[in-house]
C-alpha cells in the first residue's frame, strides 16, 4: 500500500478537472468568501476562509499545472502535500465546512468553492484523514445500511406504529408503484411522523407509492466524507432497489445532502443515467398543490418562519415550492433575513453533525441562526431537512430559546382537509 501522502496526491490529481483548474487559476484572493462563511463570521478565524480550505488540492494543482509551480517543483522548492499539512487541514475541511455553498454564491469570479472542498475531501479520505465520527457513520452506512445503524426491522417497528396511529397502510416493496420514498435514518429514529405524513398526504392525493425494504436509507455518508467510491456503493443500493420495484420516481426525503448526492452527484459518480427520476418531497408536494390534490382545512395561527436547507435551496433551486406550500397553512409567515438562496446554514450539514469533535465549533456557528431568529421573534420554525431540524433543536436548547421546530411535510399533513 502506498503512503498516505501519495494516496492523497494521486486522489487530488484525479480530481483536478477543467472547472477545478480554472477556479484555482481565477481566484483573485479577494477574501469575500470569508464573510459568506458562518464558521468565519462567528469565529473570525482567518483559517476558516473557504478558499483556504482547499490548500492541499491547490498545492497539487500549482505544482503540476502552473509554470512557476512546475519550476519550483523542478528546483525542489515547491510546497508539498505532507501528512502534517493533511492533519492540520482535516478540521478545516470537515469540522469547519458544511458544504453549504454560500461561499460559491458570493465569489466574484464565479468559483464554486463548495464543489472544490467536496473534491478536496476525496484526497483527505483516501489518505485516511477524516474525523472519527464521520468515519464511523460511513462505516455503519456501508456495513449496516444506515449511518445511525438502523436496519429494516427497526423501520418495520416504526411503520407498524404509524399504521396504528393513522389507520392507513404504509406500502412496502410494492412492484410497479409510481414513487419510491426514501427516508433518512434521522427521520426513522427521531421524526417517524414524517412517514405518517407521507401516508396521509399520498392517501388523500391518490399517489401510488412504496417504501423499499432493500433501499430505504437516503442519507449518503460516502458523499459527506468525500469518497466517490463509497458514495457510489450507497447510491447503487437505491438504484438497485428502484429498478427491482420498477418505479418511475424516487422521492428524496426532507434531507439536504441526501438530495444533493442522489439528484446531482449520483449519475456522475455511477457513470450512468438513472432509469427513474429523482424528485424532492417539496417538489412533489408542490406539484400536488398545483393539481389541487393537496388541500388544507385550517391554518397555523402562530407566527412562523422557514429555514431553507442549503442543499435544497442553493444546490437544488427549490426556493418557491416551500413558500407556496407554506402559504396554504401559515397565516402569519415571516421571512428570515437572507432567506432563500442566501440563507445561512444551520451549521451541521456535510457530515458536521456526525463529527463529535466539531461540536463546540458547531455551537459557535449556531450563533448566526440564533441572532436571525431573535431578530424575527417567530415562535415556530419550519424546515425541510431532518439534519437541520435536529441541529436547530439542539442549538435552541443550548441557548434556552423557546422555538418549536417542525418539518414542512408533517405540518401540511396535520392540516389536511
Amino acid at each position, binding site marked *: 500500500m502506498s503512503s498516505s501522502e501519495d494516496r492523497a496526491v*494521486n486522489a487530488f490529481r484525479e480530481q483536478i478537472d477543467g472547472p477545478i483548474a480554472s477556479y484555482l487559476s481565477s481566484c483573485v484572493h479577494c477574501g469575500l468568501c470569508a464573510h459568506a462563511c458562518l464558521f468565519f463570521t462567528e469565529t473570525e478565524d482567518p483559517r476558516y476562509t473557504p478558499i483556504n480550505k482547499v490548500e492541499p488540492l491547490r498545492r497539487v494543482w500549482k505544482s503540476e499545472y502552473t509554470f512557476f509551480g512546475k519550476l519550483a517543483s523542478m528546483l525542489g522548492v515547491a510546497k508539498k502535500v505532507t501528512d502534517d499539512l493533511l492533519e492540520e487541514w482535516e478540521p478545516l475541511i470537515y469540522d469547519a465546512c458544511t458544504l453549504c455553498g454560500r461561499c460559491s454564491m458570493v465569489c466574484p469570479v464565479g468559483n464554486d468553492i463548495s464543489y472544490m472542498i467536496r473534491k478536496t475531501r476525496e484526497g483527505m479520505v483516501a489518505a485516511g484523514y477524516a474525523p472519527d465520527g464521520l468515519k464511523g457513520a460511513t462505516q455503519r452506512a456501508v456495513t449496516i445500511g444506515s449511518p445511525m445503524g438502523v436496519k429494516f426491522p427497526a423501520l418495520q417497528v416504526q411503520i407498524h406504529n404509524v399504521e396504528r396511529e393513522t389507520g392507513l397502510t404504509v406500502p412496502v416493496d410494492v412492484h410497479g408503484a409510481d414513487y419510491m420514498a426514501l427516508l433518512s435514518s434521522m427521520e426513522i429514529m427521531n421524526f417517524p411522523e414524517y412517514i405518517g405524513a407521507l401516508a396521509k398526504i399520498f392517501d388523500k392525493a391518490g399517489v401510488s407509492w412504496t417504501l423499499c425494504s432493500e433501499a430505504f436509507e437516503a442519507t449518503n455518508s460516502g458523499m459527506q466524507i468525500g469518497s466517490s467510491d463509497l458514495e457510489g456503493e450507497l447510491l447503487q443500493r437505491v438504484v438497485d432497489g428502484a429498478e427491482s420495484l420498477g418505479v418511475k420516481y424516487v422521492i428524496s426525503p426532507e434531507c439536504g445532502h441526501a438530495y444533493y448526492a442522489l439528484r446531482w452527484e449520483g449519475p456522475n459518480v455511477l457513470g450512468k443515467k438513472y432509469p427513474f427520476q429523482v424528485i424532492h418531497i417539496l417538489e412533489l408536494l408542490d406539484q400536488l398543490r398545483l393539481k389541487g390534490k393537496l388541500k388544507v382545512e385550517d391554518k397555523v395561527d402562530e407566527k412562523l418562519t422557514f429555514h431553507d436547507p442549503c442543499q435544497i435551496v442553493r444546490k437544488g433551486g427549490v426556493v418557491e415550492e416551500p413558500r407556496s406550500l407554506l402559504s396554504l397553512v401559515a397565516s402569519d409567515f415571516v421571512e428570515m433575513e437572507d432567506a432563500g438562496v442566501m440563507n445561512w446554514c444551520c451549521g451541521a450539514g456535510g457530515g458536521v453533525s456526525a463529527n463529535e469533535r466539531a461540536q463546540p465549533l458547531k455551537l459557535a456557528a449556531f450563533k448566526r441562526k440564533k441572532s436571525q431568529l431573535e431578530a424575527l421573534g417567530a415562535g415556530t420554525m419550519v424546515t425541510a431537512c431532518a439534519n437541520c431540524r435536529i441541529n436547530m433543536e439542539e442549538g435552541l436548547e443550548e441557548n434556552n430559546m423557546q422555538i418549536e421546530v417542525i418539518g414542512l411535510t408533517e405540518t401540511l399533513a396535520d392540516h389536511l382537509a
Partner: protein
Amino acid sequence: MGSAVEQNVRAITVADRLRAQGISRRGFLKFCASTASLMALSPAMVPAIARALENARRPSVIWLSFQECTGCTESLTRSHSPSVESLILEQVSLDYHHTLQAASGEAAELARETAMQENQGKYLLVVDGSIPVKDGGVYSTIAGITNVDMLNEVAAGAAAIIAVGSCAAFGGIGHARPNPTGAMPVSEIVTDKPIVNVSGCPPIPTVITGVLAHFLTFNKLPDLDDLGRPLAFFGQSIHDRCYRRPFYDKGLFAESFDDEGARKGWCLYRLGCKGPATYNACATTKWNQGTSFPIEAGHPCLGCSEPDFWDMGSFYRALSIPTEDTTRTLVYGVGTGAVLGAAAAAVARSRKSKAKAAHYKVSVNDLEEST
C-alpha cells in the same frame, strides 16, 4: 566693460531691428503666429509674443562650441538667411561664437569674459558639441582651457542653457562606442541649471528660434519631454506625421532604393526608417525653408534626434520586420497555439489518466477510527 555705444545697441528692440531690415509689421506678426502655432500655444498668445519680442532687449548669448562638426551652426546660419528667424538670432547679442565672431585669440576670450561679467546670472548659454572628460579633458581645449572647465565656468553665471544638436544634448558621435575621449552631454556635467535639449544632427533651426522666442516672451523655458526636449517640437514621432504613413498602414513598403515601391513613394520602414522611434518636427516643419525632409527625398529617417542613434546598428536595418502575410501568420499562430494547447492538454490528460489508473479505492477498511 561695454561702451556707451554698445549699451545703445543693446537698447535697440527687435521691432527696431526688423524695421531697419525692411521687414514689415505684417511679416513680423506672421512670424509670431507661426511661432505660436509651432510651440502649440493658443492663438491668443500671438499678440503677447509680438509685444514681448518688440520690446525685448537683446539678451546676451554666449555660444560655446566643443567637440563638434559645426554642422549645427551651418544649419542655423545658412539655411534660413536672411529670414525672420535669422533676425531673431541676430537680435540676440551674440557675444562669443568661434565660427561667427571676427575676433580671435585673446581678444575673443576677452569678449567672452566681458559678456559674462556684465550679464552675470542673466545671459543665455548655447552649447554645441559634446564635452570630452577622459584624461582630464585634454582632448579638446580652447585657448588652453579644457572644454569641461570652460563649460563649468560659463554655466555658473548663465540663466539657462540650450544644448544645441545631438552632441550637446546626448553626446552624439563623440559619445558613440567606443567613446575614446569620454565625451559627455551638457546635462551630465551641469546639473544645477535649466537645460533645453534641442537635439538633431543638426537640429531644425526653427526649433532654436522657437525656444529663444519663448524665452524672450515668457522669460522662462518651454515645456520639456522626459529627454529635456521642447514638447512642442518633439511631442510626436516622425512616423505619426509622415506623409508616407498611409502606405505603412496598407502594408506597402519599398524593399530597395530603386524598386517600384521606392519610385511610388511607399513606406521606407523596411529600408531601416527609424521614424516610428524618432521624435522631432521634421515631417511637419521640414528643412530648407520648408522645402522637404529626408524621407521626402527618399531616404529613411536615421533617428538623429534620439539618444545614441549612432549605436543603434545599421541605418538600413529595419526596426523590426513587419508581418509578411497577416492571414497566414495568424493561421500559423493559431495552429501553433492549438498544437501547444493540445500537447499541454494531452500531458494533463495522461497525468490524470495515470492518476485514475493508480486510483486507490476507498473501502470501509480505510475508515478505521484512529485511536
